[in-house]
């Protein structure tokens, strides 16, 4: 078995991340980050310029960045977020190198006073995909790096640190210009502020466009960032009033330390989702419905918006679990498509949140585990689609047959019956005129003619009624069944249950023809023919003295039951009439059951579901199917 798939982002080309995975964040953290941390913290402690708390917090924050980066890289080696976290930690410590009084170390430090700025911008923008998605984001990062390294490097050429409390020698000093240095410093600050505003805009837009899985990844980072930002803003507004300012400073440092933890949690959450694959494997042992499979997959992938499309080979299209055509998202949609194939055959498609691209391993695992179940559901969906087609066509066939019968009945009524009645009337006129004129023999012959004609008219009328009773079309099911009961050779009682007000007993002209309260034509005709056939069987075989017709109108179904007090023992499957009726009833998704116990009687029940819209089968198209005369 092989499960293959590929992830295609709709309307968006695949882009490889720029950072090479050759650089090992682990060794960077140990080989560069830790020595830098030791050096930076030593410089800070030596000079007593910074408070102990400040030093401790920045040290913990930086180390947490290194640690989070290493863990993230170990868990997700292909995701550059781990590397970026380590680089951010290194940058944070590198910023304090300038505190050194050793000239060359101080000079190197003078190039890195904002070393973390660019990396942090890239980290925030690339999280959690590890890539920069839009040109705007890439420009933002370029500007951040430019401010952090290029402008600060140029500033080093004009900055003389010999005049500070702790004099340091800047080996790069070319022109000692406090004014130029200050100007460049302000420019770097402005660029940093601009990048920060840009970041906030991008992050807000990203949050608004994110689905639940992505939001779950972003939330810890956003919370830490929001906390730090609020603390800074409120602290700045309050001004240098003790002790509130220090309290807000502490909040800021806590938020700062939480930031790498937030990134790590985001990456780990993707990792944790993989435990769900095991659960999925266990749950899929029990074959379930397409809806259950979708729910299980959505749970395992952590994407409630997940859609599953099954490949319908004959229609060459994806359908949903019910066999209905699946609506594909627009080309510019952010949704991602994952094709699932088995043995080279396309089986299904997962439409998922783009955040799941973050964890292609999880998608691989889930599709591998669910491959068989998806294939089963795919086959089932195709079968359901075919069944739906067959059902619809069976319904159309029954409706067409009904329409043809109605038309045949009408043609008989308008044609042969009318003609015969007209002849009978004319014959009556002739007999009236010949009365007392013609001889006895002629009168007898004419009387025989009239009798024969009457019999022919009667037989034709019964034939037409058998084909399709006019009263069923004209007045509806209850009047038609009442007529059936009245013409029966034994006592037949009609009972109605829950009859709609429009069909209330006794009917009046205005109501018996109102179609609004009546079931569809197909349902009425089926119920009528079920009763007619059941009564015919009762008369022929049951030796009954009494029969009962019960017709119950429910919201969703029409129930008809014919019961007799005959000898019982009727064969459920016997009789082509009954078989044909069973087909008719099931064409409407109904059921036909027969209970027949010897000595007790026979009971036949048909439950016919009522469709909300009878047009699908019984529509004008079907009605136009005429009977050629």
């Amino acid at each position, binding site marked *: 078995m092989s499960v293959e798939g590929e992830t295609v982002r709709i309307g968006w080309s695949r882009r490889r991340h720029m950072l090479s995975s050759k650089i090992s964040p682990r060794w960077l953290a140990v080989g560069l980050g830790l020595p830098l941390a030791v050096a930076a913290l030593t410089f800070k402690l030596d000079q007593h310029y910074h408070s102990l708390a400040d030093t401790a917090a920045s040290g913990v924050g930086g180390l947490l960045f290194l640690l989070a980066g290493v863990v993230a890289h170990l868990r997700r080696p292909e995701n550059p977020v781990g590397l970026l976290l380590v680089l951010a930690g290194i940058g944070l410590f590198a910023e304090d190198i300038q505190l050194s009084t050793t000239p060359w170390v101080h000079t190197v430090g003078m190039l890195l006073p904002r070393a973390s700025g660019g990396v942090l911008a890239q980290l925030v923008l690339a999280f959690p995909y590890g890539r920069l998605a839009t040109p705007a984001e890439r420009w933002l990062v370029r500007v951040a790096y430019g401010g952090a390294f290029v402008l600060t490097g140029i500033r080093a050429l004009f900055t003389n640190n010999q005049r500070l409390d702790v004099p340091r020698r800047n080996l790069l000093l070319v022109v000692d210009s406090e004014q130029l240095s200050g100007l460049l410093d302000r420019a770097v600050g402005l660029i940093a502020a601009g990048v920060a505003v840009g970041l906030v805009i991008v992050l807000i837009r990203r949050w608004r466009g994110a689905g639940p899985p992505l939001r779950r990844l972003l939330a810890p980072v956003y919370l830490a960032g929001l906390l730090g930002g609020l603390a800074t803003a409120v602290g700045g507004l309050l001004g240098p009033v003790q002790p509130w300012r220090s309290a807000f400073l502490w909040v800021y440092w806590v938020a700062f330390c939480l930031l790498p933890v937030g990134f790590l949690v985001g990456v780990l959450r993707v990792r944790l989702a993989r435990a769900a694959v095991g659960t999925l494997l266990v749950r899929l042992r029990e074959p379930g419905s397409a809806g259950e499979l979708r729910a299980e997959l959505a749970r395992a992938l952590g994407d409630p918006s997940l859609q599953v499309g099954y490949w319908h080979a004959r229609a060459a299209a994806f359908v949903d679990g019910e066999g209905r055509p699946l609506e594909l998202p627009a080309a510019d949609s952010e949704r991602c498509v994952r094709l699932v194939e088995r043995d080279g055959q396309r089986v299904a498609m997962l439409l998922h949140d783009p955040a799941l691209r973050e964890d292609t391993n999880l998608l691989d695992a889930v599709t591998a585990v669910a491959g068989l179940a998806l294939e089963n559901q795919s086959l089932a969906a195709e079968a359901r689609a075919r069944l739906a087609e067959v059902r619809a066509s069976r319904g159309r066939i029954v409706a067409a047959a009904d329409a043809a019968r109605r038309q045949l009945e009408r043609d008989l009524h308008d044609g042969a019956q009318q003609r015969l009645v007209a002849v009978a009337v004319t014959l009556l006129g002739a007999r009236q005129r010949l009365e007392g004129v013609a001889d006895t023999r002629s009168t007898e012959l004419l009387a025989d003619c009239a009798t024969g004609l009457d019999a022919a008219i*009667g037989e034709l009328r019964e034939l037409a009624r058998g084909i399709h009773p006019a009263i069923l079309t004209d007045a509806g099911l209850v009047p038609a069944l009442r007529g059936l009961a009245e013409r029966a050779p034994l006592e037949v009682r009609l009972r109605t249950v829950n009859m709609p007000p429009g069909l209330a007993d006794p009917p009046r002209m205005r109501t018996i023809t109102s179609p609004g309260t009546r079931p569809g034509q197909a349902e009425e005709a089926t119920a009528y023919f079920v009763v007619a056939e059941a009564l015919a069987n009762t008369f022929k075989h049951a030796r009954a003295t009494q029969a009962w017709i019960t017709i119950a109108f429910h919201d969703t179904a029409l129930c008809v039951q014919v019961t007799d007090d005959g000898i019982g023992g009727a064969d459920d499957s016997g009789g082509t009439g009954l078989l044909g009726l069973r087909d008719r009833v099931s064409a409407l998704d109904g059921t036909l059951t027969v209970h027949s116990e010897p000595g007790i009687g026979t009971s036949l029940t048909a439950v016919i579901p009522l469709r909300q819209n009878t047009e699908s089968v019984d529509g004008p198209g079907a009605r136009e199917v005429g009977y050629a005369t």
Partner: protein
Amino acid sequence: MRRDKAPHAGETVLGGAAVMGVTGAGPARAPIRVVLADDAELIRTALAGLLGDYGFDVVAQVGDPVSLRATVAALRPDIAIVDVRMPPTCTTEGLEAAVELRASFPDVAVLVLSQHLESDYLDAVFGGSPRAVGYLLKERVSSIDFADAVCRVA
């Protein structure tokens, strides 16, 4: 399909018969004025001929409920003979027209002709008023008692 048993004899159901108490096989003095409404022209013509033979005065023949109403309003016949099935849908328009005529013109008797004997139609016809209304199975018009029925209803 099962063949229903033959209709009972005397299917002419006459609501007003007992009350009217009219007898005789034809009009005695002033001819009874009749409006015939049936969209089947063959039968209409045959019936008109027969009614003429019996001595009735067929003042108008119409083929649909609208002209039936207009004609009855204009001519005020003694009786309107109305087929159940009439345009436009050819289901029970004639029946509805009959009930309407009874309500609008109480002095005009109505005889409903139908291909079928269905008790629901009877209920509809006799539901409003049992007087001067009749219901006749169409094939029975060829029997001798047709004229009698028309007379009695009128």
